[in-house]
């Protein structure tokens, strides 16, 4: 297990280095990207299976024992996230090869993608809060360059907003880490979880908790700090926005779930009610924002915001079932959202625009693509038997258990509006007659290769839907681990709290 646990971080690093060494050989970089991320997916699946069978795994890097050294600790949630990140990486690698953007691929596109995946996986596996900050930075650095690579004017404009807000978030994050270290004298997550139980300065903990909430709130794009996301996600090439849409905000959600189940638990700081309120506002503002948009990827960007609300709704409710719902939602969302962005990209490549007004009749010209769009779109809206239905069902059931009727009404209402948005895209882009003159179909670009990852992700959506039972059991097991942090603490520190 020792080697398997470090692999999700080390393998992307080695892939990135190899791609750097082969700077001028784009074809070799493509082969490395596809084969490497494929291998990464297999390894992370093995890691997940191993953790499911044998419990939480820990590696103390450099053989320095926790809490003095830096540990990597993988529980089920971490391993699930690593698997999702690897699958997304694999899909993006395939799609990038198909998209054939030569001028970007020559300027370090693949090394950056690998390093981004390394940063994301590192954030999912680290057991040290300062290390979490470092992985965030690794991820952000490469995302800045990926966002601006190509240097088109809207890209730079979106990039500046993205960078400014995320830097601000990093400053808050670092301040919070500093304060936490000042109060507790440790940075190891498990050690922190032990020490906060015995502290007297709970007032300070609330302040620190709020700072973390603000910082992760910006990164996860929750209300009222979400506006950078719809301003930037539609600007880079489709493969990059697919990667960002699938992974980046979810790292923020993951960090929030990790800290607010392990350290800032409801019995210590009373922030979960606030999280619940923010979740509701995030869901509503996101979906209303989407209703006002008429550009394919902008609509999808606003829906990311709205969906993030569902994920932290489970955290706010704070029951095992609710957390399982959040985790299920994460699994469903990463796959579906990446897929929708990739489909929007194919439409963009083939018809040269993402404006719904100037699209139309895709149902006739691209019937298979239309079918493939319907799967993630209906899943996003929560139509059974697709994955989104079960994710929402779990959250609603969890809310019924604790009689949070207002949250149920919000969740269901937002779900209905999501369906409206997806119907809007369907009607405008696929169903209505093609506008006159019809958008010129570009034939210089083959989109066949780009369909492979779309089909792959759509299949996973269907599989999660039909295999909801086993997936739910996995999510519930992960949630139970989060609700009982003593296992995590024991695995890292080797002593029972």
């Amino acid at each position, binding site marked *: 297990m*020792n080697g398997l646990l470090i692999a999700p971080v080390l393998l992307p690093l080695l892939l990135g280095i190899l791609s*750097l*060494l082969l700077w001028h050989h784009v074809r070799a970089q493509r082969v490395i990207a596809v084969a490497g991320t494929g291998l990464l997916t297999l390894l992370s699946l093995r890691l997940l299976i191993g953790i499911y069978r044998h419990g939480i795994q820990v590696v103390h890097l*450099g053989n320095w024992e926790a809490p003095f050294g830096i540990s990597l600790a993988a529980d089920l949630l971490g391993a699930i996230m690593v698997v999702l990140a690897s699958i997304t990486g694999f899909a993006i690698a395939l799609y990038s090869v198909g998209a054939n953007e030569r001028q970007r691929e020559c300027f370090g596109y693949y090394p950056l993608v690998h390093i981004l995946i390394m940063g994301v996986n590192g954030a999912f596996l680290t057991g040290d809060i300062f290390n979490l900050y470092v992985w965030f930075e690794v991820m952000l650095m490469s995302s800045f360059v990926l966002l601006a690579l190509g240097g088109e004017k809207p890209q730079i404009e979106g990039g500046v907003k993205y960078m400014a807000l995320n830097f601000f978030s990093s400053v808050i994050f670092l301040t919070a880490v500093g304060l936490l270290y000042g109060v507790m004298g440790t940075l190891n997550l498990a050690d922190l979880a032990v020490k906060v139980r015995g502290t007297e300065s709970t007032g300070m903990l609330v302040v620190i908790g709020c700072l973390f909430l603000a910082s992760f709130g910006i990164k996860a794009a929750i209300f009222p700090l979400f506006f950078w996301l719809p301003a930037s996600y539609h600007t880079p090439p489709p493969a990059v926005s697919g990667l960002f849409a699938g992974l980046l905000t979810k790292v923020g959600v993951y960090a929030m779930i990790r800290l607010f189940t392990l350290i800032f638990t409801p019995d210590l700081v009373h922030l979960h009610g606030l999280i619940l309120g923010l979740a509701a506002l995030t869901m509503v503002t996101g979906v209303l924002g989407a209703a006002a948009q008429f550009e394919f990827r902008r609509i999808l960007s606003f829906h990311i915001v709205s969906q993030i609300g569902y994920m932290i709704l489970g955290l706010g409710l704070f029951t095992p079932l609710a957390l399982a719902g959040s985790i299920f939602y994460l699994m469903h969302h990463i796959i579906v959202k990446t897929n929708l962005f990739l489909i929007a990209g194919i439409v963009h490549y083939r018809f040269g625009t993402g404006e719904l007004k100037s699209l139309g009749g895709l149902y006739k010209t691209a019937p298979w693509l239309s079918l493939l769009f319907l799967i993630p779109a209906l899943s996003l809206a929560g139509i059974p038997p697709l994955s989104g239905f079960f994710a929402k069902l779990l959250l609603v059931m969890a809310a019924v258990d604790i009689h949070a009727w207002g949250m149920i009404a919000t969740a269901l209402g937002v779900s209905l509006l999501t369906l409206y948005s997806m119907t809007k895209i369907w009607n405008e882009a696929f169903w209505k007659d093609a506008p006159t003159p019809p958008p010129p179909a570009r034939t210089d670009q083959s989109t066949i290769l780009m369909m492979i990852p779309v089909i792959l992700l759509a299949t996973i959506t269907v599989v999660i839907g039909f295999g909801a039972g086993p997936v739910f059991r996995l999510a519930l097991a992960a949630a139970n681990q989060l609700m009982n942090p003593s296992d995590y603490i024991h695995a890292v520190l080797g002593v029972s709290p």
Partner: protein
Amino acid sequence: MSTLILRTATRYVAPLMLLFSIYLLLVGHSYPGGGFVGGLAASSAFALYALAYDVDTARKLMHLSPVSLSAIGLLLSALSGLIGMVHGAPYLTGQWTSLDLPGFDPIKIGTPLLFDLGVYLVVLGVTMGILFALAEEEG
């Protein structure tokens, strides 16, 4: 800038700077120094060449492109951690061996030195990459 005095001086000073950078790299584990500072010292030697002569001369002197240099450095650092894993220890665990030369005290050699060498090359590569890009934009 490129006067005869500077050019002549560079030919004597730059090798000394490189030598000093390697000294910094080697003592870094126990004394002030290390891969990062060593890399900076080495890059100032090449930067001096670029100032006294021109960027092309400095590029030729380095033999490898800054990108490859940083990539090789990263590879060395990443691999230095793997050596411990071969012995069943966690990633990045230091492995030490002793080099006995007749007439000298035994010299301790370990994976941290390899890691530092990687850092040295990355710093050299990245600094030179930035400097060359700036200098070429100006000229």
